[in-house]
C-alpha cells in the first residue's frame, strides 16, 4: 500500500514547485496538476485493491515515529479510500474543466489553490487527530476563500468576505471545542476519544462536542445560518462552486461522519433535525430561485443536509440500515454523497459552459438552447441528482426510505420524499428551460387556444459518419470544458449500471429471465452508441420494432392470464405504435432508444418479482417517458407537470410498498397508480403530456403507457377490496355506521365513473384536437377503472376488454390525427375541415375509431358498453351506471365533433393540396381497423380468452350459446348484430343506387343553399368553433379547471413559503453572522433541554 503521506507530500510539493514549472511552460504546469490529481485518484484505488472490502478493513499509518496519542495518525480504510476516490475524482474533473475552459480564471495561482484545496481535503478525510483536522480544514478553507475570489468581481470579493467571516466563527467554535475536549479526555486522537467516550457523557462534554459539531455544521451551511453559502455559489465561478459543493463540502461532511461515534442520542437528534430542516427549506428556497447558480447552491446545501440527516438517523436507528446491504450506513453515505458530488458538480459546470445565469420565468425564456450533447448531459445529470434509476441516489433513496419506514419513522420519510419532489421540480424546470424550443411558451396552454406554431428551422445536416468525423466532432464538443461534465456523467452512468446489476441481480443469475429487468439500461446504452456512430434513425426505429417483437416472442409466452393480456398491450401494442415513427426524416437523437427503453420498462412491470424490481422499472418508465414528452415542440410546461405528478405518484407508491396490506398501503399505492392513470383530480398532467408530445408519439402514451397503472391495480387488487375506513374510526358515533362497509373499490368505482364523465365533458370544449383525444383517453381510463372496481367477472373482463380495444381504437385515432396534423400543420380543429376528399383512408380510420369508441353497435365498443352496464346493474351500482351512460352520450358528442370539424364541412384553401397521410402512418391504422373489424365480427375471439384470464379470480356468471354471450341479465350476439346491420345497411344503399343512378350531380363545396346568397370564404362557412355552445351555456359551470386551481394553490403554498423564507437572507454579512449565533444558541438550548 502506498503511504497516505505521499499523497499529501505530493500535493504539497507540486503546489510549491508549480510556479517554477509554470514559468517554464504553461502547458507543463497544467499537465503537472493533472498528473498529480490523477495520482490522487490512483492511490486510493490502489488502496482499495489492497484492502479487504468485505470486512471494511482499515489500516492506520503513524507519523513521526510515534504511536497514536503522541503523534498524528492517518487512517486508510475502505471508507476513506472510496471517499477519496470520488472527492479527488471530482477535483480532477474540475481541473479538466478549468483546463479546457482556457479562461482567465485558469491561472497558475488557481492551479496551486486547487492543489492545496485537494491537499486539505485529503487530510480531512484521512486525519484522525482533531486538531489536525482543524488545520486541514483551515488549509482547504483558505484555498477556497482564495478560489472564490478568482473571478475578480466585486461580488466575488463580497462573497469571499462573507464566507471568511462565517468560516472564522466556525473555526473559533471548533478550536474552543477541541480544547475543551482535549481538557476532558486528555487526547486529541479520535480513536482514543471514541474509546473513552464515557468521559464525555456529561454536560460539559456534550457541550464541547456540540461546539465541534456546530462548527462542522456551520461549515456545511445549515438552515438558516447559510446565507453566505448561497451567496458564494451565486458569485463564484461555476468551477469553484463545483469544488465548494462537491469536494470541500463532501470532505467536511466526512469529518462529521467520522466523529458521529462520539455523539450521544440527544446530539444525534439535534443533528438530524438540523439536517432535515436544512434539506426541506433549502429545496423550498431553491424552488423560488431565479439565478441558476444560486438555485444549484441551495440544492447543494439541501443535499448536504440530507446527507447529515441520513448519517444522524443511521446512527440513531443503526440496525435498520445495516440490514440492507454491505457497509450499512456507509454505503448510503457513499451513494448519496458520490451521486451528489458528481451530478451537482456536473450541473455547475454545465451552467458555466452555457453561461446561463438567470432561469427567467418559464414564460419569457432568454435561454441558451442546449445542443443534443448538452441536453443529454444535463438530462442525465439532472436525473441522477433527482434520484432516478439507475443512478446511485435512486438506490440510496430506496434504502433510506425502506429503513425509515421499517423503523416507523414516517415523518422523516415524508420530509425526504417531499423535499426530493421539490428538488426534482426545480431541477427539471431548469433542464426544460435549457432544452425547450424557442417557440415554446413554457406553460400548459390548457385553457387558452394556442397560437399556431411557426415552422421550426430545419436543422442543417450533420457531418458524415466516418470515424474521422466522429473523432473530430467529439474533439470539437469536448473543448470548452464539455469534458468535465461528460466525465462526471460517465462516472455516474457507469456507477448506475454497476449498481443496477448489483441490486437487481443480487448475485443470482439463473438464466436470461433475470436479466430482463436490466434490458432497458442496455438498450439505452446501445442506442446511444448508435446515435454516436450515426446509425440512421429509420434503422434505429426498425431495430427497436424488431427488438420489441423479439422481447414479446421470448418473454411473453412464459406468462398467462392477466399478465399476458397486459404483456400483449405493452409489447405488441408498442411495436405497432412505433411504425409511424418510420415516417420521420432526419436524425432524432435518443428518441428510438428512449422509446424502446420505455417499452421494455413497461414490459418489465410484468416480470418484477420484488418491490425493488417493480419500483425500479416503474421509475425507469417515468423518466424515459418524461424524456419522450420533452421532445414535443411546446411540451416543456406539460412535461414538467408530468414529471412532478409522476414522481409524486412514484413516491406515494414507494411509501405504500412498506405498509403490507393495510388500508394505508392501499391508499398510497392507489394514489400512485391513479396518478399514472390520470383520474379526476390527479389528471392535470395528462392532457398536456398526451397532447404536447410529438404527434406520432402521443398514441404511445395514451394507448399504452396509461395502462401501466391499471395493470398494477389488477396485480394488487386484493388490497382494494378492504374497507377504506379502518375499524375504530369515529367509533360509537353515527359516522361509524355510515362509513363502515365502504371498501376502496367503492371509492374507485365512483372515481372511475366521475373520471369518465369529466374526461368526456372536458374533451367536449377543446378546440385543440390532441387535447380532445387526451381527455378522451382520460375518460376511457375512467371506464376501465370503474369496471375494475366492480370486482366481478364481467367487470374485470370488461376492464381488460376495454384496455385491449382502447389500444386499438385510440391508437388508430391518435395515429390518424397525427397524420392529419402532419399534413395540415395545425392542431386546431376549426382550422381544418373538408379533409375527407383529401385524406379518405384517414377519414375511414377515424370513422371506425369513433364508432368503436362511442360504443355504437355493431363495432367492438358496444361490447364494452354491454358488459359495463350489465355488470353495473348486476352489482347494484345503478347511479354509477346512469352517470356512465351520460358520459358515453357526451363522448358521442365530442367524437362527432372530431370527425365533423376535421373531415366534413368546408375544405380550406390552404388544405387544397394536402395529400393522404404517409404510408407508415397508415399501417398502424390498417392494423387497428383489421383488429376492430375482426373482434366486431367475432367478439368471442376476444371475450373467451379474457374469460379464461379472469377465471381464477371469480365465479363465472356468463355463459355461451353459440356466438351469443349470456349474462344473468341479458344477452348479446355480436355476430348476429353485425349481419343484421350489414343487411339493413345494404338494402337502402342498393335502393338509392338504383333510384339515383343518373341525373344526380356531385356539386362543389360552395354549391349550398345559403339563404339565397353565396358563401365567400370556407372559413366563415365552416361551423366548427365552439361546436357545442349550448352545452357550455347549460353546464359550463362544470367546466371550470377546479383540479388545476387546487394544484396551483398547492404549488403557490410552496412558493409563498419559499419567498417568505428567503427574506431571511438579506445579504447583510452581519445578519448572516447573527443567524449563525442564533442557530448555535438554539441548537445548544435544545440540547441542554434534552439532557
Amino acid at each position: 500500500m502506498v503511504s497516505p503521506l505521499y499523497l499529501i507530500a505530493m500535493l504539497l510539493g507540486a503546489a510549491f514547485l508549480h510556479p517554477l514549472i509554470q514559468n517554464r511552460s504553461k502547458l507543463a504546469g497544467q499537465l503537472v496538476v493533472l498528473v498529480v490529481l490523477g495520482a490522487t485518484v490512483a492511490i486510493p484505488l490502489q488502496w482499495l485493491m489492497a484492502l479487504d472490502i468485505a470486512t471494511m478493513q482499515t489500516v492506520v499509518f503513524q507519523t513521526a515515529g510515534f504511536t497514536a496519542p503522541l503523534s498524528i495518525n492517518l487512517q486508510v480504510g475502505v471508507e476513506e479510500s472510496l471517499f477519496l476516490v470520488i472527492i479527488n475524482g471530482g477535483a480532477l474533473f474540475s481541473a479538466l474543466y478549468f483546463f479546457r475552459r482556457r479562461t482567465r480564471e485558469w491561472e497558475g495561482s488557481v492551479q496551486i489553490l486547487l492543489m492545496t484545496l485537494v491537499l486539505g481535503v485529503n487530510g480531512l478525510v484521512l486525519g484522525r487527530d482533531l486538531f489536525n483536522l482543524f488545520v486541514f480544514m483551515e488549509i482547504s478553507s483558505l484555498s477556497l476563500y482564495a478560489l472564490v475570489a478568482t473571478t475578480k468581481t466585486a461580488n466575488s470579493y463580497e462573497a469571499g468576505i462573507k464566507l471568511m467571516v462565517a468560516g472564522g466563527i466556525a473555526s473559533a467554535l471548533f478550536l474552543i471545542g477541541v480544547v475543551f475536549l482535549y481538557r476532558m479526555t486528555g487526547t486529541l486522537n479520535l480513536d482514543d476519544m471514541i474509546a473513552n467516550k464515557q468521559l464525555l457523557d456529561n454536560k460539559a462534554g456534550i457541550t464541547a462536542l456540540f461546539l465541534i459539531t456546530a462548527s462542522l455544521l456551520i461549515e456545511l451551511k445549515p438552515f438558516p445560518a447559510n446565507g453566505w453559502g448561497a451567496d458564494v455559489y451565486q458569485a463564484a465561478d461555476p468551477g469553484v462552486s463545483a469544488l465548494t459543493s462537491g469536494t470541500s463540502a463532501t470532505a467536511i461532511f466526512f469529518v462529521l461522519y467520522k466523529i458521529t461515534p462520539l455523539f450521544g442520542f440527544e446530539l444525534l437528534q439535534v443533528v438530524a433535525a438540523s439536517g432535515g430542516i436544512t434539506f426541506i427549506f433549502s429545496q423550498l428556497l431553491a424552488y423560488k430561485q431565479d439565478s441558476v447558480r444560486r438555485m444549484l447552491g441551495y440544492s447543494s446545501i439541501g443535499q448536504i443536509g440530507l446527507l447529515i440527516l441520513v448519517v444522524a438517523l443511521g446512527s440513531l436507528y443503526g440496525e435498520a440500515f445495516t440490514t440492507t446491504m454491505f457497509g450499512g450506513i456507509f454505503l448510503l453515505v457513499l451513494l448519496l454523497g458520490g451521486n451528489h458530488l458528481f451530478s451537482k458538480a456536473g450541473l455547475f459546470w454545465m451552467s458555466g459552459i452555457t453561461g446561463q445565469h438567470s432561469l427567467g420565468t418559464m414564460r419569457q425564456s432568454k435561454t441558451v438552447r442546449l445542443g443534443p450533447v448538452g441536453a443529454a448531459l444535463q438530462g442525465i445529470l439532472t436525473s441522477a441528482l433527482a434520484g432516478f434509476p439507475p443512478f446511485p441516489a435512486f438506490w440510496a433513496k430506496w434504502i433510506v426510505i425502506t429503513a425509515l419506514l421499517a423503523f416507523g419513522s414516517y415523518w422523516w420519510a415524508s420530509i425526504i420524499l417531499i423535499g426530493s419532489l421539490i428538488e426534482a421540480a426545480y431541477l427539471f424546470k431548469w433542464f426544460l428551460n435549457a432544452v425547450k424550443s424557442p417557440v415554446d411558451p413554457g406553460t400548459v396552454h390548457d385553457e387558452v387556444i394556442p397560437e399556431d406554431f411557426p415552422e421550426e428551422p430545419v436543422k442543417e445536416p450533420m457531418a458524415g459518419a466516418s470515424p474521422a468525423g466522429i473523432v473530430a466532432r467529439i474533439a470539437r464538443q469536448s473543448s470548452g470544458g464539455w469534458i468535465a461534465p461528460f466525465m462526471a456523467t460517465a462516472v455516474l452512468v457507469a456507477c448506475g449500471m454497476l449498481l443496477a446489476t448489483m441490486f437487481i441481480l443480487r448475485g443470482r443469475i439463473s438464466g436470461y429471465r433475470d436479466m430482463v429487468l436490466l434490458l432497458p439500461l442496455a438498450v439505452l446504452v446501445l442506442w446511444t452508441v448508435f446515435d454516436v456512430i450515426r446509425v440512421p434513425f429509420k434503422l434505429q426505429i426498425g431495430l427497436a420494432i424488431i427488438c420489441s417483437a423479439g422481447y414479446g416472442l421470448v418473454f411473453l409466452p412464459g406468462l398467462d392470464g392477466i399478465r399476458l393480456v397486459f404483456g400483449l398491450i405493452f409489447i405488441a401494442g408498442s411495436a405497432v405504435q412505433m411504425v409511424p415513427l418510420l415516417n420521420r426524416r432526419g436524425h432524432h437523437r435518443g428518441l428510438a432508444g428512449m422509446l424502446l427503453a420505455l417499452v421494455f420498462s413497461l414490459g418489465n412491470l410484468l416480470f418484477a418479482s420484488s418491490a425493488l424490481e417493480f419500483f425500479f422499472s416503474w421509475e425507469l418508465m417515468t423518466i424515459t417517458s418524461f424524456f419522450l414528452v420533452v421532445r414535443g415542440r411546446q411540451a416543456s410546461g406539460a412535461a414538467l407537470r408530468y414529471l412532478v405528478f409522476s414522481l409524486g405518484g412514484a413516491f406515494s407508491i414507494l411509501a405504500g410498498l412498506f405498509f403490507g396490506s393495510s388500508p394505508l398501503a392501499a391508499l398510497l399505492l392507489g394514489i400512485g397508480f391513479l396518478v399514472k392513470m390520470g383520474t379526476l383530480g390527479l389528471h392535470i398532467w395528462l392532457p398536456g403530456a398526451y397532447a404536447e408530445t410529438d404527434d406520432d408519439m402521443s398514441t404511445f402514451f395514451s394507448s399504452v403507457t396509461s395502462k401501466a397503472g391499471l395493470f398494477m391495480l389488477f396485480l394488487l387488487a386484493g388490497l382494494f377490496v378492504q374497507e377504506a375506513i379502518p375499524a375504530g374510526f369515529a367509533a360509537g358515533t353515527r359516522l361509524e355506521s355510515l362509513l363502515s362497509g365502504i371498501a376502496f373499490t367503492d371509492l374507485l368505482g365512483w372515481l372511475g365513473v366521475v373520471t369518465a364523465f369529466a374526461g368526456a365533458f372536458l374533451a367536449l370544449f377543446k378546440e385543440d384536437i390532441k387535447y380532445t383525444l387526451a381527455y378522451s383517453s382520460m375518460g376511457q381510463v375512467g371506464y376501465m377503472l370503474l369496471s375494475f372496481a366492480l370486482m366481478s367477472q364481467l367487470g374485470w373482463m370488461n376492464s381488460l376488454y376495454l384496455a385491449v380495444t382502447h389500444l386499438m381504437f385510440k391508437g388508430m385515432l391518435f395515429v390518424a390525427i397525427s397524420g392529419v396534423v402532419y399534413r395540415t400543420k395545425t392542431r386546431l380543429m376549426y382550422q381544418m375541415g373538408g379533409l375527407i376528399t383529401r385524406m379518405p383512408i384517414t377519414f375511414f380510420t377515424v370513422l371506425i375509431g369513433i364508432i368503436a369508441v362511442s360504443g355504437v353497435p355493431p363495432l367492438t365498443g358496444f361490447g364494452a358498453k354491454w358488459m359495463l352496464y350489465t355488470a353495473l346493474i348486476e352489482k347494484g351500482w345503478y347511479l354509477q351506471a346512469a352517470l356512465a351512460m351520460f358520459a358515453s352520450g357526451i363522448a358521442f358528442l365530442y367524437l362527432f365533433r372530431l370527425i365533423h370539424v376535421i373531415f366534413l364541412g368546408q375544405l380550406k384553401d390552404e388544405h387544397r393540396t394536402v395529400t393522404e397521410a404517409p404510408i407508415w402512418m397508415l399501417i398502424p391504422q390498417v392494423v387497428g381497423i383489421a383488429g376492430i373489424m375482426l373482434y366486431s365480427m367475432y367478439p368471442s375471439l376476444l371475450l373467451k380468452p379474457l374469460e379464461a384470464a379472469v377465471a381464477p379470480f371469480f365465479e363465472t356468471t356468463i355463459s355461451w350459446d353459440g356466438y351469443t354471450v349470456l349474462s344473468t341479465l341479458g344477452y348479446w350476439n355480436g355476430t348476429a348484430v353485425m349481419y343484421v346491420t350489414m343487411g339493413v345497411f345494404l338494402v337502402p344503399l342498393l335502393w338509392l343506387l338504383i333510384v339515383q343512378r343518373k341525373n344526380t350531380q356531385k356539386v362543389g363545396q360552395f354549391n349550398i343553399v345559403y339563404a339565397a346568397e353565396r358563401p365567400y370564404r370556407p372559413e366563415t362557412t365552416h361551423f366548427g368553433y365552439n361546436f357545442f355552445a349550448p352545452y357550455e351555456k347549460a353546464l359550463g359551470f362544470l367546466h371550470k379547471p377546479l383540479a388545476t386551481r387546487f394544484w396551483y394553490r398547492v404549488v403557490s403554498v410552496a412558493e409563498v413559503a419559499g419567498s417568505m423564507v428567503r427574506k431571511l437572507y438579506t445579504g447583510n454579512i452581519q445578519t448572516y453572522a447573527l443567524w449563525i449565533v442564533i442557530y448555535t444558541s438554539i441548537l445548544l438550548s435544545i440540547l441542554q433541554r434534552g439532557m
Partner: protein
Amino acid sequence: MNEIMTKAWYTLISLFVITNYGLLLGGTMARVRAKVQGRIGQPVWQPYIDILKNNFKRTGIYHGVMFYLGPVFRLAGGLGTYLFIPAVYGSLVFSNFSFSGDLLLVMYFIFFGQLGMALGAGQSGHPYSPLGVSRGLAQMTAFEVPFALSVIAIAAQYQTLSITEIVAAQQGGILNWVAFTNPLAMVAGMISFLGMSMGNPFSVVIAPQEIPIGPPTEMQSSFLGMLQTNRAIFNGAKLVLFMNLYFGGATNIWIMVIKTFLIYLYTVIVDASFPRFRTDQSIRFFLGTPALIGIAAVVLQML
C-alpha cells in the same frame, strides 16, 4: 336454409307492417293536429305522396360519399332499431331479431342512425346542418339521462335487460305494467320520450325558421324520401319500445296499434300545447326534474 328463408319473410312482413303503420300514424297525427287548429288538414295518405314525389324527382345533387351514405345510415339505423325490438309479445313474425341483443343494444343502436345522418349532413358543407346536429346531439345526450335512469330502474326491478322478459313480466293485467309498478320510471321515461320525438318544446333541433330544418337542409329528392321513410319506421320503433318498456307490450298487433297510437297522441298533445325551448334550456330541463325523478326511481330500487 329453410329457417333463414322463413325468417327473411317474417322480417319483410314485419318491416312492411311497421312502415305502413308509421306512415299512416304520421298522416293521422297531422290530421289530428289540424283538427286542433280548426283546419281540415292534409289527407291521411299525404306522407305516402310526399315520399313518392321525392322519389320521382328528376334531378338531385350530392356533396360527397358521406352525403350519399348519410340517409342510408339513417334508414339502416331506423330499420335496425326496429329489428332488435320484439314488436309483439309471443308473435313469431314480429319477434324480429330480438335474440341478438337486449335493451342496451337497442339504446345504443339509436346512435347508429344519428351518427350516419350527422355525417351526411356534415359533408354537405352547409353551416346550418352541423348547427342542427350540434343542437340535436346536445339535446339527445340530455334526454338520454332520464331515459337511462328509467331503464336502469326497470332492469333493476325485473333483474333483466331482455325486452322480451320485461314484457313477459308485465303480463297478466294492467296493474302489472311498469307504469303502475314503477310509476316514477315511467314518468322519467315518458318525459324523455318527448325529447326523443323532437316535438315542442324540444323542437329547436329542426327549427325551420332559423336553421332551415337543421341537419337535412341540403337533402332532397330520394335522399329526402329515404329520410321520410325512416321517420315513419323509427317513430314506430320508438313507440313500440316505449310500449314494451312501460305499458305491458302487446300480445297482438291491434293492441300494439292502440297503445302506440295513444303514446303518440300524448306527444302530439304536448307538441301542440307548448312553445319551444332553447337548446341549453332543454338540456337544463332534462337534467333537472326528469333526472331527479329517474334518480328517485333508481334509488327506490336500491332500497
